[in-house]
């Protein structure tokens, strides 16, 4: 395994602080990890404008690199092209559903992550974080988060 692969794997395994079952690679916000003369440049793309986790993610990437003994690095934020929920990987979608968060889809296609009923009701388009809507299942009665399609 090359050094570049190691570093990429290291950065890719940093988790989202608000949805810790997802890594930043699962979320699709890790754009690139470049190695140039022992200097590492990590580029990430912000998700929602209102996501307070972005700064934390930058810090967590920096901390992961430092723990691996890498001090020469830069974490860049790229706004273009804009992130969309289509960038979440299949692995990410699967983990979301397992975690009890309905993955991104049209609001009328959301399925309850607990009992798979296809008739949940939207309680509020603005849920516990910027990326989630609050829904409640009309069959099992459980409230759950829906990762908004974006």
């Amino acid at each position: 395994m090359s050094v570049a692969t190691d570093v990429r794997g290291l950065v890719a395994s940093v988790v989202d602080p608000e949805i810790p079952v997802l890594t930043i690679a699962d979320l699709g916000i890790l754009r690139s990890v470049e190695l140039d003369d022992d200097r590492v440049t990590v580029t990430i793309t912000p998700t929602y404008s209102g996501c307070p986790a972005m700064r934390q993610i930058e810090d967590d990437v920096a901390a992961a690199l430092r723990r691996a003994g890498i001090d020469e690095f830069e974490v860049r934020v790229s706004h273009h092209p804009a992130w969309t929920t289509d960038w979440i990987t299949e692995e990410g979608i699967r983990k979301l559903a397992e975690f009890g968060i309905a993955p991104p889809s049209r609001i009328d296609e959301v399925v309850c992550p607990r009992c798979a009923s296809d008739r949940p009701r939207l309680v509020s388009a603005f849920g516990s974080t910027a990326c989630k809507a609050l829904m409640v299942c009309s069959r099992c009665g459980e409230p759950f988060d829906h990762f908004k399609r974006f």
Partner: protein
Amino acid sequence: MSEQIVTGAPQGTPESGVAPEVAALLAHADDNMVLAQRLGEWISNAPELELDIALGNIALDHLGVARALYTLAGEIEGEGRDEDDLAMGRTERQFANLLLVEQPNGDFGHTIVRQLLFDVYQRLLWDGLAASPQRSLAGIAERARKEAEYHFRFSSGWLVRLGDGTEEAHGRAQDAIDSLWRFTAELFEGPEPVDRREWERTVFAVFDEAGVSAPEDPYQRTGGRRGFHTEHLGYLLAEMQWMQRAYPGMEW
């Protein structure tokens, strides 16, 4: 003395010394910063928990847009000013936000009307800027456009509920429109062109559904884009900036 106050724009005001491209970014950043601060005042005060969370989330979206635009403006300007310098270190006369967004929250109906008028404006604004040759700006706009859609669904849905609701709710919604309408001409003063007829078409469609109407009074107040604000902005900035003013550069 008085001549200087009338004619002499202080250094660094929206009219002086800043490149137009940077000034335009600052104007949009200021809109979002000031509205985020206003919406944040609702935290723990909204009529219901879900509304508290919704208004807080919308505030965070506007704050995020403001941060991205301030950072970009600082990079393009190239004089080392970062997002904090631009948000916390400029005076009232240097802020170029719309008068609409600095207006006090009033009651919930007032906040909803202010939000609706601004959401419809921002949907059109971001549509245009998403095609900007400035790629970072285009990316920020593309993302903000989707968020504005969520905000619009919230504000338009609530205006319909209020306008079409009890006599009390209807009256308050109409009062809010009567009071805020005079700040709408300014939406079309730039820095980017926003189609007024398109804006009116959407706003009036929501008004129709809500059973409310725009006032006939043609009086309009402008000036925010040139740094001439209503008395409310100074108080807002005083609260927002005091810590950086008292302890410059402090972090926690």
